């Protein structure tokens, strides 16, 4: 076993949260090492190919899934520097004011230990650093905040076509809030609308960590070390303070990285698994688990893609993968059915490729033979797509525990118990009906929906004020261990309908500042 030189901060994971922590803490003068389990990618590795893009997701995490619904962990995870944010679609709406006070307002779910206004400065700061395109005024559902620094992305024929359906039903649409540059910004290039977001954006138009926060971290002196898989967090004899992490290097040698502060930001599943595997005499059921809630309140967005097939060429290959337009309005029927039961939104006019998870072929999985060929020819010209994301409620029984199976390092795998909340399922069902109605209003010849799937895994180390009812405090710090901070969606107390990545950035930004401002207290 070899020991590395002690650093101020070791960060487990280089994705959305880890990269922000690294950039900010290095900027604040801290000596930072980021340990990334996967390979080191550069922009030159981001080949424009639907198949090559799949290297950005690995064959892990391996899971035992016991619940009724899948969490699609591999689709929602990343492999290598940048993590899942390297291939994410950058739809960046903010969580809403009500999301933070769900229990107080509705009597169901949980309350966060913070309010929207606590996070608003971080949202504004990240937005300025990253560059979000959109139209704050037109986005009437948006909570208060600084206007977007960039004008909206261009709307192509597919967007116009679907928007006409919304308009006929008197539903509002706005430009999509998206962390893709409509104009050059801070030395980065503007989007050229070729729809390769899923393959990673090598021109830096999309806010992936390679383009922004990992680059900033490195510039500020942080070390980003790939092929370094953290197996557990190490504690001192008292069990009160973390002393660093144990990891396997590229040669499968065990190494120790001592650090004054440990930040775990390894994706929801892997963060929870790492904590559960970090048992000691004082923490026999996992680190940060005195409440017994570590791994609980697992959430994910119930999601569905609605398709419409038009006769004309709607240029569905143009734009960003995340879409061109956005709406939170519901049809009258849906509003009546679900006014009190949560929100959802549409990401409208997704850029499509012939194959892959957002491809023409997978939209009609039942077709094969000559039917498939005929469909592909039609779809290449006239297929339109939009995604509905719905809220999921925090349910205690949805959880990750340790499996009896082990990974190649001898650490126990995650066992997932997940059933989408009844309300999440109801919202999904209503989205299917709304989608058909909207396409019919737009003049589509055929309309259908894809399968229910889960996007953006969250929860499991939820924030809260009460250490008996939550795992982390308002800054993502473990209640049980003062110098271990959690980054990423696992700290979410509730899961808004809004996509997660912007809020992950904002929380990491806020927690970084807190850590720097309170460094001596946290590390003494």
């Amino acid at each position, binding site marked *: 076993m070899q020991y590395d030189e002690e650093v101020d901060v070791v960060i487990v994971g280089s994705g959305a949260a880890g990269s922000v922590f690294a950039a900010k803490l290095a900027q604040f003068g801290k000596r930072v090492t980021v340990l990334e389990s996967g390979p080191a990618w550069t922009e030159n590795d*981001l*080949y*424009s190919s639907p198949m090559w893009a799949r*290297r950005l997701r690995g064959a892990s995490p391996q899971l035992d899934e016991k619940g009724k619904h899948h969490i699609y962990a591999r689709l929602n995870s990343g492999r290598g520097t940048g993590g899942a944010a390297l291939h994410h679609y950058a739809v960046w709406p903010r969580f809403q004011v009500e999301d933070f006070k769900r229990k107080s307002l509705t009597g169901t779910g949980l309350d966060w230990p913070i309010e929207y206004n606590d996070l608003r400065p971080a949202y504004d700061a990240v937005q300025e650093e990253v560059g979000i395109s959109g139209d704050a005024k037109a986005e009437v559902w948006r909570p208060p905040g600084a206007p977007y620094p960039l004008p909206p992305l261009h709307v192509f024929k597919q967007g116009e076509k679907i928007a006409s359906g919304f308009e006929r039903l008197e539903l509002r649409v706005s430009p999509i809030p998206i962390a893709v540059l409509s104009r050059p910004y801070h030395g980065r290039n503007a989007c050229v609308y070729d729809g390769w977001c899923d393959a990673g954006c090598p021109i830096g138009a999309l806010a992936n960590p390679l383009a922004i926060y990992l680059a900033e971290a490195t510039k500020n002196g942080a070390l980003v070390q790939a092929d370094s898989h953290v197996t557990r967090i190490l504690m001192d004899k008292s069990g009160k303070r973390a002393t660093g992490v144990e990891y396997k290097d590229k040669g499968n040698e065990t190494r120790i990285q001592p650090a004054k502060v440990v930040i775990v930001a390894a994706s929801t599943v892997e963060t929870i698994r790492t904590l559960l595997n970090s048992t000691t005499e004082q923490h026999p059921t996992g680190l940060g688990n005195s409440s017994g809630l570590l791994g609980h309140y697992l959430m994910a967005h119930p999601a569905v893609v609605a398709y419409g097939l038009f006769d004309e060429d709607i240029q569905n290959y143009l734009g960003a993968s995340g879409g061109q337009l956005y709406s939170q309005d519901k049809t009258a029927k849906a509003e009546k059915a679900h006014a009190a039961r949560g929100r959802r939104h549409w990401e409208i006019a997704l850029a499509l490729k012939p194959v892959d998870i957002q491809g023409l*072929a*997978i939209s009609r999985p039942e077709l*094969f*033979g000559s039917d498939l*060929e005929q469909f592909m020819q039609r779809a290449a010209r006239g297929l339109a797509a939009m995604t509905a994301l719905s809220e999921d409620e925090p349910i205690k029984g949805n959880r990750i525990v340790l499996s009896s199976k082990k990974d190649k390092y001898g650490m126990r795998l995650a066992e997932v118990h997940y059933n989408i909340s009844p309300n999440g399922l109801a919202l999904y069902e209503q989205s299917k009906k709304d989608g058909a109605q909207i396409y019919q209003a737009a003049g589509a010849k055929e309309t259908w929906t894809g399968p229910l799937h889960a996007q953006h895994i969250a929860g499991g180390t939820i924030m809260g004020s009460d250490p008996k009812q939550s795992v982390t405090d308002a800054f993502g710090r473990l209640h049980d261990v003062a110098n271990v901070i959690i980054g990423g969606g696992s700290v979410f107390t509730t899961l808004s309908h809004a996509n997660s990545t912007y809020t992950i950035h904002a929380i990491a930004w806020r927690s970084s500042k807190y850590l720097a401002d309170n460094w001596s207290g946290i590390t003494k």
Partner: protein
Amino acid sequence: MEQDRREFFKTSGLGLLAFSVGGASLLMTAAEARAKNVPLKVLTADEARTLEALGETLHAGAGEAGLVHFIDQQLSIEPDDCMSLVKYFVNDPPFVDFYRAGVSSLNAYSKARFRLFFADLKGSDRVELVKSIVRDNPKEWPFPPPAPLFYMVLRNDTTDVLYGTIDGFRRLGVPYMPHIVPPEMW
């Protein structure tokens, strides 16, 4: 039209892959590897025969485009690097176990229904069999993976081979618009 399509499949394929021939590593397309009868690294001849027959049923031309050599090549590399969609939907690598079990079940199901292996069925029987596994797991399908999952993965491999390349895009009239063209070696 049919002639054009056949010609296309002979000349397009997936770009070049590294195939081991007589101890040397040669670059060729999956279609070329198939045409030259390059030895498979992972799949057996019987498994290859079944997969090719299934691929041809899912989309004519998949065999000539090198579907079997593509799958074989993806199964021969580290699971993390695998470019088949199998990686997203099957929990436990090595993924060859998935294909192997699926082929066995397909043949067992085919024997139960028609008393023949899948590759020996006439075209209309193959189509009937595939139709019956698109959404359902027939009671004669003996063991995992579930029939619809096996169908889905093989169908995705087939569409990848036929439509996932620069030539595949072109054939559909979809501009490829690459930032970085994929490298020659897969």
